[in-house]
């Protein structure tokens, strides 16, 4: 079978380059937008996903991990007594002011536990020993803080809420959706720093279940015993923390609009070039009809050209997207390109190009084969 679609498409190389460049541009734009948003969403739940807990207890109506509210820390005793719970601890998550050497004050988001090691948290320790946090006024700081606060080193001191604390370790990949750097300190030290209002109060209880324990049953029992709190499995709480930013802020809509515009750019470019190409080949299509071809034969040609443009444009768009991953990381941004995203964007690209080809379908349907007799 002679592949007229491919041969026609590649015959005019400049037009082909313009078409696939348009598709590639749209594909890169979509990957970067969704990938950056995915990276931000990853940050929104990265601490939940890495803390080795099965169940999270929050105060009622807490929207996400960053915006915690207080409740009595003694509730942890009720959680520990629930059948199937292997261990449970209080967790404080709170923003605190940190004074920088230049006199400026910034925010850090502090995670405070009594024993970090048994929760395997933080998960990526670069320097220091987590067990040392219990020994005094110390804290760990994530490496990402250097971008906001300037360079720092283990052994240096910083004032947190006007208390002098020593940096005894550093972590990596502990990020928040708000991009506020994350620090880790002992639970009692955090309560002391935060003041009287925090005495005897916590923001979360995290629970690890015994092997084989029924998560749903344990969750229901904790909820029964703590009716004024909300109880989530880790997956539920992670999802809620992510969806808050998508659904409750303009960020999700903003991302949607950018992706939509990227898609529209691609559709317009492909539609325009395919339509121009169709008009230039209109007599050839008339010839196809005159020698017995149907509209469907011509639709197939246009569809195949759209799919070829989509596949080549997708491949060309994917390369810069991947190349941007390390470049973005250097700028402190996480660009997440998962296999699932690649598949979705590929299907979307093909659909986008086929949609663009449909603009030409209407023109083709009205081609009069008698035009082959016109000079």
């Amino acid at each position, binding site marked *: 079978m002679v592949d007229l679609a491919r041969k026609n498409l590649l015959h005019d190389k400049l037009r082909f380059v313009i078409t696939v460049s348009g598709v590639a541009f749209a594909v890169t734009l979509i990957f970067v937008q969704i990938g950056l948003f995915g990276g931000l969403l990853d940050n929104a739940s990265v601490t939940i996903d890495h803390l080795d807990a099965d169940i999270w207890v929050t105060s009622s109506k807490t929207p996400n991990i960053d915006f915690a509210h207080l409740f009595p820390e003694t509730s942890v005793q009720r959680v520990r007594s629930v059948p199937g719970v292997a261990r449970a601890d209080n967790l404080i998550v709170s923003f605190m002011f940190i004074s920088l050497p230049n006199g400026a004050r910034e925010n850090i988001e502090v995670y405070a536990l009594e024993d970090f090691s048994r929760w395997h948290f933080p998960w990526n320790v670069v320097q220091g020993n987590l067990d040392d946090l219990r020994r005094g006024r110390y804290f760990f700081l994530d490496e990402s803080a250097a971008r906001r606060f300037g360079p720092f080193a283990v052994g240096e001191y910083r004032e947190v809420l006007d208390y002098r604390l020593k940096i005894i370790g550093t972590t990596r990949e502990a990020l928040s959706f708000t991009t506020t750097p994350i620090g880790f300190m002992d639970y009692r030290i955090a309560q002391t720093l935060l003041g009287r209002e925090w005495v005897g109060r916590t923001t979360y209880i995290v629970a690890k279940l015994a092997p084989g324990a029924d998560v749903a049953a344990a969750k229901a029992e904790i909820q029964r015993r703590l009716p004024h709190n909300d109880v989530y499995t880790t997956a539920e709480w992670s999802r809620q923390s992510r969806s808050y930013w998508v659904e409750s802020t303009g960020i999700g809509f903003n991302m949607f609009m950018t992706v939509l515009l990227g898609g529209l750019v691609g559709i317009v470019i492909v539609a325009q070039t395919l339509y121009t190409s169709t008009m230039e080949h209109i007599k050839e299509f008339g010839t196809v009809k005159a020698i017995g071809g149907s509209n469907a034969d011509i639709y197939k040609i246009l569809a195949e050209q759209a799919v070829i443009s989509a596949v080549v444009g997708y491949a060309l768009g994917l390369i810069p997207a991947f190349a941007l991953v390390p470049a973005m990381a250097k700028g402190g941004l996480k660009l997440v390109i998962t296999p699932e995203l690649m598949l979705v964007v590929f299907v979307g690209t093909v659909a986008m190009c086929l949609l663009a080809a449909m603009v030409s379908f209407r023109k083709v349907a009205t081609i009069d084969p008698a035009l082959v*007799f016109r000079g």
Partner: protein
Amino acid sequence: MLLEATDIHKTFQEGRETVHVLNGVTLSLARGEIVSLEGPSGSGKTTLLSIIGCILTPTSGRVVIEQHGVNAQHQGELARVRRQYIGFVFQQFNLFPALTALENIEYALNIKGVKGVAAQREAERVLVAVGLAERLHFLPRDLSGGQKQRVAVARALAGNSPLILADEPTANLDSVTGGQVLEMFRALAKQENRGLLIVTHDPKVRAVADRVLKIEDGRLI
């Protein structure tokens, strides 16, 4: 009889005016017969060719090809008749610029339902028959006008369509080349027992035609 067109009328609407392009044309063509249809511009010859070629539908009248009455109301039926019975040669050659001479003919055969090796062999056969054995893999841009028209003739002959319709096949050729193409066309049509209707202004076509028809104001005279 290969072709019988009976009492063909065709009118076009131009604004409020009805233009009668064909006024009761009747003609027939037998296998192996070559007929030249001559007439001045606007006489209706190309319209008649389009109707016989199942590209246009007549306002009234009947076209029968190989004893099959053409149902002019159904576009799919018209396309089927074109695929099965008719080969076209156009004034402007109408070759696909991105396809080689061989591929141009293979593609036409693909449309007619002949695929793969069978299409390739048939394409080679007709190209050899028109004297282009050395130009099979040339793109149209690398062929002369006469060679392009030979490819177009080969395309019309490919697939054994019994009826060949040619619209001014020598109009874009110099007189020597035009004469050669016509001679070749005649020889192949006779040899393969095809019916050939040539619409033309070119008096040289008379030399190869078995019969000459003249059309004026939509009527054969």
